[in-house]
Structure formats: C-alpha cells, structure tokens
C-alpha cells in the first residue's frame, strides 16, 4: 500500500505533519509489535504441538491472521474437533471486526475499493487501535500509516514469529513469565485514553468497559467485548452537549474530512 491523494482538509498538504504522525505511530507500534511477536511464537509452538505442518501454520497466520481464533483452532484441532465447530467459533470470535471496519469506513471512503479490500484483510484489534489514533492526529486517512500499523507492526511480526515459534519448539518462553500478556490490555487502554477528548468519548469508554465485564462474566468474554463496543457509543450519544448549537471545541466533527479544521483540537490525538 502506498500513499493516496489527500482526502481533504488543511492538514492534508502538510508532509512534515504526516512524517511526524507516522514517527509517533511507529514508536507506539514498537510496544504493540511485542504482542505480535510474543503470541506469534506461542501460536507457532501450539500449531506444532497440534500436529500442523509448517505450511499449515503459516497458512493460518497469513490467510486467517486472527490470533485468538488461530490459538483456539490449534487447541480444537489437537482435541480432534470437527471443522464446522472450528469455523463457527472463528466467526463468533472475529465478529468484533465488524465494529472496527464500521468505525474506520468514514475515514477510508476516499480510498479505492481494491485498496479498502486489501486493508480489510489485515484489520486487527491492534491495527484498529493504532490507526484510529493516527488518523485523528492527522485529521484525515493515511494509507501509509495504516500499512505501518497493520502490516509492519502486526502482520510481519506475527508471521515471522509463527515460523520462529514452530521451528524453535519448546525453547519458546511462556509469555506470562516475561509479562508479555499485560501488553495487550495496557495498549488497548492507553490507546483508548488517546481517543477520549470529551465527555461523550469518556462515557462511551467507561460504559463499554463495564458492559464488557458484566456481559463477559454472564455469558462469554467475546460476547462481552461486542456488547461493550455496541452499548458504549449509545451511552456516549446520550450525553448532552453543553450547548446543542455549538460543538464542543475538542470534538471530532461527524465528517472526518473536516476534523483538521476544528479549533482547539489536540494535534497528537491525546486528550489535552
């Protein structure tokens, strides 16, 4: 993927702004790449122990590219489960991507259809989180930034680590021992903070977290995440503006293309 023409807005022509934002994105991505490496190693090992060949393990990581579903499938294959059950579980685990794609769709509407189709394949939790913060920093979509977040930070490390984990076998350390398992929730929480720039976002985030935990405990964590992602924005919308006639100064306009023109917007995507 390469840079396309700017969508709109005064920030669109500022090459140094893009470079600075991408540099920030790359630094943020360094920590998140550890998630891909750590759990890619674990998946490679799990696939080997489940009886996958190297080609099959690599096919999972390149074609499916969905960590939780891949790890669950490895366990089910090892347990002798049938393919229909594994495919059904995969659809269920990955349904949350609908929310990510829907949230990114307004930003990416100026991109060509083939490019959007390619972007969709590498859309993950981490790519979504990094990309949304990056787009908000810039005030517009940036396909090059998306490639950094989705491909350089996640796809390449995940696939390289899958091969390494498969070949290294028992030499792969348990991510819990070196506390790599804390990086994912810490990164998601930290990036959520970067998206909270007003009362509505704050209420949406808090409600999303509460609903995710309550529903996750009552039914299943995967259902909880989807429920939280759906309910949080409704709660945020219920928060009245201070003055309905005047948008809050730190609020992103409904149309992302005009975001850069909002006075008082933080230029780094983090709450002021």
């Amino acid at each position, binding site marked *: 993927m390469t840079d396309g023409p700017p969508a709109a807005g005064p920030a669109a022509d500022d090459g140094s702004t893009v470079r600075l934002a991408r540099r920030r994105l790359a630094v943020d991505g360094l920590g998140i790449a550890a998630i891909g490496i750590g759990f890619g190693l674990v998946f490679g090992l799990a696939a080997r122990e489940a009886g996958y060949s190297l080609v099959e393990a690599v096919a999972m990581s390149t074609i499916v590219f969905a960590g939780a579903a891949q790890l669950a499938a490895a366990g089910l294959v090892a347990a002798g489960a049938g393919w229909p059950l594994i495919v*059904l579980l995969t659809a269920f685990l990955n349904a949350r991507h*609908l929310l990510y794609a829907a949230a990114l769709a307004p930003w990416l509407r100026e991109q060509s259809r083939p490019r959007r189709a390619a972007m969709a394949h590498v859309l993950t939790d981490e790519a979504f989180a990094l990309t949304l913060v990056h787009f908000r920093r810039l005030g517009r979509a940036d396909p090059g930034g998306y490639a950094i977040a989705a491909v350089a930070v996640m796809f390449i490390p995940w696939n390289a680590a899958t091969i390494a984990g498969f070949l290294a076998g028992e030499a792969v350390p348990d991510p819990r021992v070196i*506390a790599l398992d804390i990086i994912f929730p810490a990164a998601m929480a930290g990036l959520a903070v970067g998206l909270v720039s007003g009362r509505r976002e704050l209420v949406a985030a808090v409600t999303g977290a509460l609903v995710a935990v309550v529903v996750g405990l009552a039914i299943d964590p995967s259902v909880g995440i989807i429920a939280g992602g759906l309910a949080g924005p409704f709660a945020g919308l219920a928060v009245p503006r201070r003055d309905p006639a005047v948008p809050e100064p730190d609020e992103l306009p409904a149309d992302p293309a005009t975001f850069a023109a909002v006075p008082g917007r933080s230029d780094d995507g983090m709450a002021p």
Partner: protein
Amino acid sequence: MSIELVGLAVLMAAVTYPSRAIPLLLPGFERLSPRVLEYLRLVGPAVLAALAASAVLVVRDAAGRPTLAVGIELLAVAAAVAVVRWRRNLLLALLVAVVIVAAARAIGAG
C-alpha cells in the same frame, strides 16, 4: 508435508474476512447520517476500553467458566493509563506495565 489444514485456514478466513470488509466495501457507508457517524466515532474508545477491561478482569476458571479477576494486572493497566495521560507516551506506558507485572510475579505477588 501435510497441507490438509490449509483448507481449514481458507474456511476460517472465509468467515473472518466479511466482518472485516463489509463495512469498508458497502456503498451505503459513504452516505451515512451525521448521527450514525457520531455513533461510529464513539465505537473506538468504547471497544478499546471493552477489550482492555475484558482482558484484565475476566478470566476463565479451571472449568472454562468466565470469572472476575482483580489482580496486579489491573494495577499495571491503571499505571499505563496514568503514564499515557501524564507523558503521552504509549511505549513508556507499556514498559511500566510490563515491569510492574513481571516484578509482582517474580516475588510471587502476581
């Protein structure tokens, strides 16, 4: 070398890709109302907070049932959030979280 599970990978991708692609490729998404766009703008903070909270607070017990867990991981994520608010540096925040959890586990407190 077996390639049988490549077929399973293709089937798994076939049910994963639509959830990633349909909203991006559906023509109607280019003409959404401001109210819907405002809702979608709030999906980001809501779903990221949901992912973090679920990962930290909901674990499975030995029987596979979801169970509430309040441990050092919650403190580590809270510290990471504080660092992001204070320094606006995600990498530093992740390092702080890892050090807290690793240290706690090393002394048997995590």
